[in-house]
């Protein structure tokens, strides 16, 4: 491992906290891989060695796990992971067209990163927001009801260094590394930030209130 002493000390401290959450140490592997991405921006050879050491596996065993899951990246990831849902429903509602325009704009294809390292583009599978289709995710925050223009504006903002705000999520999207630290199970103080509940989430409740319907008669 080539981590400097401070980085390694912090990693070890965080790893201990993660290991403490589970009765069996190997369960810590997925969050540890997220942790490694929060430092290196991908699952690096150093990160694999670190995880192997932490949960007492071989580096081959850790690699075998890391390569199974799409969120673990094998090459340095962009600062912002931009995913356009192109599973059937979002694709039909316009996701294909959004993807085409974003890919043209960024000049990269699926699972590729812009030369400046700002954006990694991905065709993502269903992200459980179908009532907000077409959906885009930036560092796994929701950008709902996208159009090509809205999506292009988000990408422009990222490329020009401006903050971007999701439709459901915190006030600004964190970087890929910061996001990975949250996914490793470390709170970042943004939990109460909110953009208001989206219309599709509340639509049934609204109908019920208007009609005076209650859940029991």
């Amino acid at each position, binding site marked *: 491992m080539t981590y400097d002493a401070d980085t390694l000390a912090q990693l070890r401290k965080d790893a201990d906290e993660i290991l403490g959450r589970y009765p069996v140490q190997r369960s810590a592997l997925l969050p540890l891989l997220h942790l490694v991405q929060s430092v290196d921006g991908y699952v690096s050879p150093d990160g694999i060695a670190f995880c192997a050491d932490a949960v007492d596996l071989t580096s081959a065993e850790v690699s075998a796990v890391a390569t199974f899951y799409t969120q673990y990246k094998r090459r340095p990831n962009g600062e912002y992971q931009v995913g356009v849902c192109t599973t059937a429903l979002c694709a039909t509602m*316009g996701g294909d067209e959004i993807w085409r325009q974003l890919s043209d704009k960024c000049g990269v294809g699926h699972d590729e990163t812009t030369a400046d390292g700002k954006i990694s583009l991905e065709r993502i599978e269903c992200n459980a927001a179908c*009532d907000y289709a077409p959906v885009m995710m930036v560092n796994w925050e929701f950008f709902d009801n996208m159009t090509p223009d809205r999506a292009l504006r988000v990408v422009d903002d990222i490329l020009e260094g401006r903050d971007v705000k999701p439709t459901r999520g915190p006030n600004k999207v964190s970087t890929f590394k910061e996001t990975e630290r949250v996914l490793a199970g470390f709170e970042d103080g943004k939990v109460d930030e909110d953009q208001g509940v989206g219309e599709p989430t509340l639509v*049934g409740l609204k109908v019920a209130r208007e009609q005076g319907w209650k859940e029991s008669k």
Partner: protein
Amino acid sequence: MTDLTPVLSATWDAEQSWKLSTYEEHGGYRALKKALGMDKADIIQAVKDSGLRGRGGAGFPTGMKWGFLPPDDGGPRYLVVNADESEPGTCKDIPTMLSAPQVLVEGVAITSYAIGCNHAFIYVRGEVTHVYRRLMQAVREAYDAGHLGKNIHGSGFDLDVTVHAGAGAYICGEETALLDSLEGRRGQPRLKPPFPAVAGLYARPTVVNNVESISSVPAIIDRGVEWFTSMGTERSKGMGLFSLSGHVERPGQYEAPLGITLRELLEMAGGMRGGKKLKFWTPGGSSTPIFTDEHLDTPLDYESVGAAGSMLGTRALQIFDETTCVVRVVTRWTEFYKHESCGKCTPCREGTFWLTQILKRVEGGQGVDADIQQLLDTCESILGRAFCALGDGATSCISSSIQYFREEFEQHITDGACPFDHSASALFEVTESTKATEEAHA
């Protein structure tokens, strides 16, 4: 007309609905205190009597699942919540956890107490950062208030809850793959038996339940079995979230008694987009055979949907109008299954690959007459022969779409092209210039 019945969604419009204080103002944790004063067997019996069936797709009776745990042998037993919501079309657990994570945490506490579990896990898919934040806070707040931790409310019952983020794999929604993933392995399904109830997490007795199933438990304990069974049909009791998506005027979450129909739901949702005609829909996600406008009045309960040739699944109603090419949609779903097949078993790994090849050929106008029969034969080779339900699910949309729209598949082959203008299905205007570029790309 069936009334909507907001129970889980009732507090979603409250100020900071995700906070413990908001939840408690609306009666939160009353059920836990009541449960802690009850006999464990009585809690399990109440859930059995309520008729609550798994809300994650399979519809297995929740109380019966709990009852399968072997007698206490003094060793640990686990509750694992399946929050890996990834079935295409399914979008009910994410808003639940975003807007009301405490109801899930309370459900976890009650269930854990009932089954004798002292360490529960919530396995949430990794691609939803803000949901994970809300869950972590919900658990932290519940600890601080004494709803979790040591000697909960003086009952002598201890419970730790770990919120665990996955890393992007649909297969981890399959309960045994989820357990392997939670153990730090590749998420591949296990051979059953032994079932998780006997040898689950760390080979110990384990209950795996969906978010919505566990979130329904506090209300059943608080308001009683009779209240719950007053909703729904004879054998499909209670309420559930119906998630409408696609070509409808007002897509979203509609919490209703099981047995409501799409016709009723569509009326509440303002009808089809721009008054267009309904073409096809899924009653419970992409793994459930598609329905058409013939099924507008099919009661959406487990039995009626099953009798009509599909499955209630996750009540993920993906609705497509007449502008939609069914071959295009089915091809894309099949690409999803190919991408998500874990590779463990041959029928699914190879089958989804070849289905994708054939479908792309048909969709692109290069299909041959034998392709339709080849698709059906390949589906037959997968169905019932795959290691888990992913392979079976992959065949549903293909077989059912050929059943209802065979002539559309044939038309792609005879015309040598897709007869549909894809831009008509989009929710925004696709300009002529972009269409021209699209053709150049194709």
